[in-house]
Structures are given as structure tokens and as C-alpha cells.
């Protein structure tokens, strides 16, 4: 740990945190299970159920990462990691400025992969410019 703690802190504070986090994890599991049994997907749709389930899972995961994996106190490591992640996000953002503007979106895309060929082709956005020559099928 970056922040050093004494024995008393481990005995009194940290142990209590562990039990709290354990309680949150058990409660999260119980709530997700109960809501599923209650039939959230049938009543409010599958998407709502998925969003709910993954939100609870994310909260559970966050408590594990922050307390059990003690990132709360590893502030130097946290800073370094966030900086590295930020550079990746910045890179993706900059790439999106160039590539993203050329990706053609289809209104008719029903969201199922493989149904529609939406492969990006260079120059396709500029209608009439750099358009590949159309090849006529051979006559029988």
C-alpha cells in the first residue's frame, strides 16, 4: 500500500470495511437474483433487465476494486494508471476525428452483425468522387 497504516487501523478500520464490502456484495447478488425471479425482463423488457443487472454488477465490482484490491489507498499507482488510460482514450478520440467522420451509418441497420455490409470504404462518403468503376456482369 502506498499509504502506510498501523496495526490498529487494520484491526479496527479495515476489518470493518471488509465486512461491509462483503455485505454489499451479498446484498447485490441477492437483489439481482430476486429482481430476476420477480420477472423484471418480462415486465420491463430485456434491455432494462440487462442494464439493471450490469449496473449492480458494476457497483459490486467497484467495491471489490476499491476496498479489497485497496486501490483506494494506492493513490500513486492510481494516478499513473489513469494517466496511461487517458492517453489511450485521447488516441481513440483523435482517431475517431479522422476515421469516424468517414464511417457510413445505415438507418436500416437492424443492429445484427453480418446482416448488412457496412464495411468502411475509402472515399465512399464523397459521392461521385473516387467512385470505383462499376463492372457489368458478363452476359450469358
Amino acid at each position, binding site marked *: 500500500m502506498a499509504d502506510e497504516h498501523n496495526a490498529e487501523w487494520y484491526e479496527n478500520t*479495515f476489518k470493518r470495511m471488509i465486512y461491509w*464490502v462483503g455485505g454489499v456484495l451479498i446484498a447485490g447478488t441477492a437483489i439481482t437474483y430476486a429482481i430476476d425471479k420477480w420477472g423484471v425482463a418480462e415486465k420491463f423488457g430485456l434491455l432494462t433487465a440487462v442494464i439493471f443487472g450490469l449496473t449492480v454488477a458494476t457497483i459490486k465490482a467497484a467495491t471489490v476494486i476499491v476496498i479489497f484490491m485497496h486501490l483506494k489507498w494506492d493513490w500513486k499507482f492510481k494516478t499513473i494508471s489513469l494517466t496511461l488510460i487517458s492517453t489511450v482514450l485521447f488516441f481513440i478520440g483523435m482517431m475517431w476525428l479522422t476515421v469516424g467522420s468517414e464511417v457510413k451509418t445505415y438507418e436500416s441497420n437492424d443492429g445484427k452483425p453480418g446482416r448488412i455490409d457496412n464495411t468502411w470504404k475509402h472515399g465512399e462518403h464523397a459521392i461521385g468522387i473516387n467512385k470505383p468503376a462499376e463492372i457489368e456482369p458478363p452476359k450469358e
Partner: protein
Amino acid sequence: MEIPYNSTARPDTGLYNGKVGIWLFLASEVMLFGALFSAYVLLRVGAEPGNWSMGLMSKEVGAFNTLILIASSATIVLAWVSLKLKDWNGYRKWKIATVVFASMFLIVKWGYEWPAKFTHYDVTFVDDKAAETVFAEVLNKDSYNDECQKHHKEIWSARYNIDGKDWGSVDTKDKPLDGYIVGYYTENENGEREHHKVGQAFGIYFWSHAFAWRHDKRNDGRTTGAKRDTFREKGVVAVEIEPAHGTWDKHTDKHALVTDRRYAKAGDGQASDAGGHGHAITIETSQISRVSSYEPAHSTFFAVYYTLTGLHALHVFGGILVMLYHLMPISRRMYESDPDRFTNRIEITGLFWHFVDLVWIFLFPILYLF
């Protein structure tokens, strides 16, 4: 030569060497599981109607395993805290508890959940007429009438299509009947039928001698390139199926067998439906297009399920081996010679274990619930 920052943290990063290593390893693990989770999302979104069979999972078993893993995650931190407090006995106690929880997880997964799936079958049919005849019999109705369809829709939707929207777009023949193989028929040289019972394996109620059997109509007539086909190997002309309890019997007047009577006891000569309790039905092989247990080849969902849970279970297994090593006398000697370094090792093991827990936290809702 002494390696720097083996036990103490580097001032600039706040991390000792081992901790840098484990975080780099966990980053690679995130990429590995991230790729599989992405594959899951794409396969699920692209699944044809009625083909995402996650309704077949036992939610109770999934929830139980989640609680076990949560408990192990808490005990492993407590083990590390004990070492911070210079309490070896406390460490041993919590570490053993962690190993016990982890082992329970694997016993449930590999000893119950998976084998139970390999003896649970889905049957689909060659045409709608054959399917309707079978479903009418299973639901104890005179014909595949409106009432029968209503019950069938209820059962099918809960398992294959939670909002019931796809009912009309899937043929009746492709809506599976699920259950257990309790017997089968073959024909001898004189054309007479011989009945064969399928009993329990090893006296375990959820293990049947019909373990991962397969039959696919598409194999008929194939001489080369055919997949393994148990029906063809055994010459099965008809199969006795007992529809899954708690599912199909809810809408019938017939009573289900208690689970431990599901299979005839091997070699005792008792028919599986002896005493009139059973609800086994006989289906001709000619009516069946496919028989598959809930093995990876069953469907895309189960292929993904076994890949994800299998990889996760391997991580659990690896974690158990490391934790057992940390309970051996050699580890005690290391603790006595360099307590800080040993405490760091336990912290690192804990970080790995929490990651394993994290993966399961997401696997539980996406594979079992929603």
C-alpha cells in the same frame, strides 16, 4: 546482489516489484476476458430468434456459486490482514477457509453443474406434425390444441425467448423438448424391438449412462465426414425420454418422479417408469431431427458458456494451487525469514483472486440471469 524494491515500495510508484508484475498480468487478463465478453455480446445480439438458450441455466446454482466466491474474496483479504497484524494462525485459518470456498466453487461447477448438463437433453423434430404429436402427449392433451399451445409457449418462452416475441417466427419442430434419456429401443435381426434401460452412473442421481449422447438427422446416409452419432452407433430406433421435472409436468395431471427415481437403477431390472409415477414417452428416431445434451455443441450459448466458465474455473484451480503452496511448511519458513516479503506475496495472490471474483461478478448476470 540484492534486488531493490523486493519487499519495500518504490518511492515514485508506491509499488514493490511483485505488485507491478501482478497488475501487468491482470491487465493482460482483462484483455483476454474482454475479448471473450465482446464475443459474447456480438454472438448474443446476432443470435437467430429462439436460439439463445440461457433460460436453461439454473439460477440458484449460479447464485450459490457467486456467494461462495464472494465469501472467498473476503476471507483472502482477512488472511492478508492477519499477516499485517503478525498473526500466523489467523492467516492460516482464513487461508484454509479461502481454499475451502474455492474448492466448493469447483465442486459445484465441475462435479454437479457441468455433468448435470451433459445428461440433460434437447430433442427437436423432423416436422411440425411429429413435434405436435409429441408435445400433446407430453402435456397430456388430446391434441396440440390452443390450451396445449398456450402451455408450450409459456415453457418455451421462459427458456428460449424471455419476452415471447419470437414464438411465431420459430417452427414447432425447432422448439425443443427437454428431458432425460431413460431408455431406448433397438431392432434385432428378426425385426423385433428390444428395450434397453439407461440407469444412473455411479449411483449419482444427476449422472446418467446417457452421457453426452448425440444424434443428428443430417448424419443419415453420410459415409464420410459424419460427426459422432450415438444413435447410429447403438442402432437406436426409438428413445425413451422423461421430460424435465418442474417444467413440463406443471401442466399435466401426471405426477413427476422424485428426482432420485429419475433413472432406473443400473441392472436392477426396474423400468424407469415403474409404478406409474413416471412420465417417460417414447419417440421414434425417425421423428427426431436432433438430440443433443447441453454440451458445447448444443448451441452458440453453451459454446460461449463453457468457454467463459471453463477459463474462469481454470483460474480458480490455479489460484487454489498457489494458495495451497502458501500453506505449506516452505512458506512458513519464508514468512519467518522475511515476513514483509511473504506478506506481499499474499497480497499479490489476493489481487489475482479478487480479479477472478470480478470476472464471476459479471459472468453471473450475463450467463444465468438476463
